[in-house]
């Protein structure tokens, strides 16, 4: 990105964080993923993290493409495995702030096992999950987040499986920070991200975002803009709400906010502490 020094136009502060040479991106008009990336870039600017020490790891899917658009050390891994890749990366290079940026299908369906285990061990990862209720990249199939009754290509008569309540899943698995916003809540998202970056441990942010091409259209929910209006009307900010109570129903109320913010030793801290204790006591007994 070159900027002319004579230009009077202000430069968008997020530009240095994007691989502008790769634009236009692959996301559809009205898709919420780009909005979240804008928030992410702003959060990086605001947090003043050294960008050389921030790495982004994605899995596969529409949100999985985020890694390819951020001008950071970035890894587009295999489907569902962004979290274990990121766990290895962070342990090998503890100076890094490692962000996992992926979709609901990637993180919670195929990657669900890794999600709960990384939360359990409190791996020091910042997980950003864009939840559009559907598999977008493959053409709109039902996901473990699809609300009951919603149509998808593989649930043509309406989904009948109970979806995961992601904040509840994250909290009960051990996450130290849990928040949910919609793509409408751009300032809140940015603030939550800044907070998550400074947090040690498994921080989880769910962002409800529209998929106008597949989810909105098939369910006759209008455009991306109409989705934003819906989020504005139907979401209720309840910071500190019990995650048990934030389930999402088809076109029902969406409880958003910061739900969990606790402290607990990270995987690395726990590992180091345990090793120090045991090895010290063993060497003491030997003396």
């Amino acid at each position: 990105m070159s900027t002319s020094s004579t230009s009077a136009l202000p430069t968008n502060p997020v530009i240095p964080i994007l691989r502008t040479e790769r634009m236009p991106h692959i996301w559809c008009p009205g898709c919420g993923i780009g909005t979240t990336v804008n928030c992410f870039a702003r959060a990086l600017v605001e947090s003043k993290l050294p960008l050389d020490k921030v790495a982004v790891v994605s899995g596969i899917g529409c949100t999985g493409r985020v890694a390819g658009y951020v001008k950071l050390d970035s890894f587009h891994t295999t489907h569902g495995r962004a979290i274990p890749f990121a766990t290895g990366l962070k342990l090998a290079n503890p100076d890094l702030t490692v962000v996992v940026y992926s979709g609901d299908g990637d993180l919670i369906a195929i990657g669900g096992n890794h999600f709960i285990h990384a939360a359990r061990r409190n791996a020091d990862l910042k997980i950003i999950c864009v939840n559009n209720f559907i598999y977008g990249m493959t053409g709109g199939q039902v996901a473990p987040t699809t609300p009951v009754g919603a149509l998808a290509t593989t649930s043509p008569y309406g989904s009948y499986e109970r979806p995961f309540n992601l904040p509840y899943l994250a909290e009960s698995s051990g996450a130290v920070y849990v928040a949910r916003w919609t793509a409408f809540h751009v300032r809140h998202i940015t603030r939550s991200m800044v907070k998550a970056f400074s947090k040690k441990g498994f921080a989880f942010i769910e962002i409800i975002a529209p998929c106008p091409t597949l989810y909105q259209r098939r369910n006759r929910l209008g455009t991306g803009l109409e989705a934003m209006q819906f989020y504005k009307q139907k979401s209720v900010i309840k910071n500190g709400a019990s995650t048990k109570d934030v389930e999402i129903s088809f076109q029902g109320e969406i409880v958003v906010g910061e739900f969990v913010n606790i402290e607990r030793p990270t995987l690395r801290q726990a590992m180091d502490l345990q090793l120090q204790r045991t090895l010290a006591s063993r060497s003491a007994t030997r003396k």
Partner: protein
Amino acid sequence: MKADPKMVLTGVHFLDGDQACCEGAIAAGANFVAGYPITPSTEIVERYASRAPKVGGVFLQMEDELASSIAIQGAVWGGAKAFTVTSGPGFSLMMEHIGFAAMTETPCVFVDVQRGGPSTGLPTLPGQADVMQARWGSHGDYEIIALCPNSPQECFDLMIDAFNLSEQYRVPVMFMMDECVGHMTEKVVIPPADAIDVFPRRYTSLPPEEYFPYRPGPDGIPEMVKAGDGYHFHITGLTHDEQGYPAMTWQEQEKLVRRLVEKIRLNGERLERNETHGLEDAEIVIVAYGISSRVALHAVQMAREQGLKVGFLRPLMLWPFPEKTVRELAHRVKAFVVVEMNYGQIVYEVERCAAGEARTVLVPHGGGTVHDPQEILKAICEVAQ
């Protein structure tokens, strides 16, 4: 570059193959291991878990083999030298990430202590039926290197080679042990650190603005960087251009896949590593590897005592297959007798390279125990008639 003395247990030891493999990895500089317990490979991770804090390493027991096989790759891009360890069922689960390592050219080592299969098979008993899987198990076109030790000493020695080759060629290296080799205990001599060569990671010296993650050097292999050094690079399992960016065209696919394949294929002859006996006057050549080779060598000696002109060829490197040696032998020997603990894998490679010039006979075994040397001798005698 020489091994770090802190990582090398120099001395004479009495170790099983699993333990020796672990020590070889540590001597080669492995400082990250992710694994999931599976018989008969578990002793490797148990030993690493115990040794890790003493050698500045990290061991992480993952939730499954999918996680283990990708966590090591995250660690490599963070600057570590890493391996994972498994057996048949876990090896099957790791296939996607072997492909990812091949595609992203991530140097790492996959240890497979083979047991009887298919499926859960014989967890505590040997097999050699993962050999083709090691070569072809992940989807798409790619090449890997596979080494195959037949003793605890070789588990140590070849594990160092496994790491060195993975760094030199930037490929995942398969370390194809079997239950017998893993669990047999023998003398293992660990040399001093200054007698162990370690191939350093091919880090670039170029500044970020001049660096392309997938621009090949003169030998077809690109230079590496690691996260955190200011390169802001991108790695993807998608077909990618020299910049590392997704490139969805047949031209980029052709360029990339061809390079991934040729960086190994064009070096096939240079990579060959064989143990041979009595090939000079041989009319029949026994081909065997891993634990089967020890039984087969005994059968060769018995045949020699009967006056039969039998030679012995043991590839220590199964992939790339020692084509040159087998082709040359095929010009002058009558037959190859392939002894392997499966119903035909390496025999097809021997047959391919013999190209009709010499007869190829398989002495198969379904696994669970080693061949009876008499059975091999019988096959030799039949071929000799």
